[in-house]
């Protein structure tokens, strides 16, 4: 019993630690736009606010399970063990990047860690994840697939088509709808018929006679519980589930879209910049999953204040080293662009 408690304690602290590692990484990405202008190109998107959902979900996975999120993809490989150095170098477009500078922020891939890659086209990756579940099913690998996507993506045809196919083929997959309440600059209540009717987005599961459930996405334990149940179902060959994890994106959608060489940075959150609703933003910031979870673990005596600090510190060290590594890594040689077009 004590051993069991101990084990759980470790696991809760592990969750906290991963959440912090993600947050610190994202903060460094965000700071890069100020500290090293032009180093990050195109469009980068942060997962701050999503940490409880990401880590709570992946907490339930077995080592060979596959993870396939959308283009907002930094958090997941961090949990899977991808070196932050390689990730940051990729986001900085360097030769030592995870994808040699070919993909950038939106297209991280680490197949050895069961993270096959992402798509920047909304909703399409839901089908890819479903295909990974076909592989698992056909090869009897006992893997399951964690498919993450946004509230906005649930308005794309690919979402519905995929869920129907997963249901009829009884695929081992969990669909985790990250309802961060915004689709770029649009509040989800402006574009979703369930939301307009005051119903949760997990209602969409009914279209496929699939279990659908909505959880508090700021609480990693609640997420782990719901996703764990879906994982058991998937692993037992009973098919897919849809879980809506509701939380709040804490940064703006992405850095400002502009034409180079104009500088780009992260603007204010859309709640403020677009809707003039600072109250909404502040309300949700107060529910920051990391702050909440930290307080809870300390309060419950699961984690000492000092441990929390050293977790934070070591995450910061790890991220600082990643930034240094990335800045030091050379840009790829131009002619490398001709590689990897065909296998």
């Amino acid at each position: 019993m004590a051993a069991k408690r101990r084990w759980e304690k470790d696991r809760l602290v592990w969750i906290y630690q991963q959440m912090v590692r993600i947050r610190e990484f994202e903060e460094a990405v965000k700071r890069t736009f100020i500290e090293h202008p032009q180093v990050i190109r195109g469009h980068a998107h942060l997962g701050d606010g999503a940490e409880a959902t990401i880590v709570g979900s992946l907490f339930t996975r077995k080592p060979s399970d596959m993870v396939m999120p959308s283009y907002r993809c930094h958090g997941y490989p961090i949990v899977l063990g991808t070196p932050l150095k390689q990730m940051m170098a990729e986001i900085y477009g360097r030769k030592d990047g995870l994808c040699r500078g070919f993909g950038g922020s939106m297209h991280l891939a680490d197949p050895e860690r069961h993270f096959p890659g992402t798509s920047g086209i909304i909703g399409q990756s839901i089908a890819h994840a479903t295909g990974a579940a076909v592989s698992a099913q056909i090869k009897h690998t006992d893997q399951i697939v964690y498919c993450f996507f946004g509230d906005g993506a649930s308005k794309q045809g690919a979402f519905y088509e995929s869920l129907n196919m997963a249901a009829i083929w009884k695929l081992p997959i969990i669909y985790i709808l990250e309802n961060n309440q915004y689709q770029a600059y649009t509040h989800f209540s402006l574009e979703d018929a369930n939301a307009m009717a005051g119903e949760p987005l997990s209602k969409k599961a009914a279209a496929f006679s699939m279990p659908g459930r909505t959880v508090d996405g700021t609480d990693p334990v609640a997420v782990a519980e719901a996703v764990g149940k879906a994982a058991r179902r998937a692993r037992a060959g009973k098919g897919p589930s849809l879980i809506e994890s509701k939380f709040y994106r804490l940064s703006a959608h992405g850095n400002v879209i502009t034409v180079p060489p104009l500088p780009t940075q992260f603007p204010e959150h859309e709640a403020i910049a677009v809707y003039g609703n600072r109250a909404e933003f502040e309300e949700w910031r107060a529910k920051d999953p990391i702050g909440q979870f930290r307080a809870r673990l300390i309060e419950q005596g699961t984690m000492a204040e000092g441990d929390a600090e050293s977790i934070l510190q070591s995450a910061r060290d790890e991220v600082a080293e990643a930034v240094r590594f990335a800045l030091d890594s050379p840009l790829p040689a131009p002619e490398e662009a001709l590689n990897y077009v065909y296998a």
Partner: protein
Amino acid sequence: MREMMYGDAIAAAIIEEMQRDESVIFYGQNMAMTDRDPMLKRFGRSRVRIAPISETAETGIAIGAALTGLRPIVELWMSEFMLVAFDQIINEAPRFRYMSGGRVKVPVVFKAGYGFAAGWAGQHSNCLYHSMMGVPGLKVVVPSTPADAKGLLAASIRDDNPVVYLHSYMLTLERGEVPDGEFLIPLGAADVKRTGNDVTIVAIGWMVKKALAAAEQLKEEGISAEVIDPRTLAPLDVNTIVSSVSKTGRLVLVDQAPRHSSAAAVIAAEVSEHGFEYLRAPVRMVTALDTPVPYSTPLENYVLPNEGKIVQAVRSILANQAVAA
């Protein structure tokens, strides 16, 4: 006349056309979010709408609305997002009129930016006009200046056919003189952006600017380049291009797309059939290299066409003549 940015010229055309004709409506994702939106204030929630991330429905709805009396403009943002709805663009909008034996029409504008070559990587930086410019029944417009952006968009909105209006993301902040008020540029008329005698450079969208810069540089070498912007890829003004080649005898095509998915190839083909007798040197295509668009700066620069590559191409076919002579 007023100096304006390319992006603002586009907005001006939409506003003016919506003012002129109340059957024009405008919608898309991430626009008109709040009542403070200026378009919304002017035209109301009925004609200006916010749409979910549902390009198939967005474009299909526009077709249905156009079939029944409206003139929708669909804001699609990046041209790649059309691909999830490509059936609607390629195999629905341009088919209805023909399949009905002329009984219906589909006046719709699909508006999107293209070719955002600024580190957006493999899926957001492409040029897809080649796959639309050959579809009978569809028109494809690619403006390269603020004035063209306005005049061609107004004409697209008034056109009774489906029009894909592709503006270059890279030109959004480009400034230029734009006529005030009603200003229409007919679809199907190429524009000679610079006259010259030694070589014809045909360039599209963002590449027009680069071709003009190359022409300036070539001038210093004593080479006089004519620069033509087709402006609309469908209908394609082959005559203007062939007649320029009849004068210069040489053709360089500049296109941001990879070689085999370029408008350049189609134009080269037309000239190889209809302008062959005038050609004194091989046609040269300056296009993107045959790769997806990579993320990192040196890689991206390497694969895209630029001023230097255009200059090189021109030199090479002038050299070619020297050898032949």
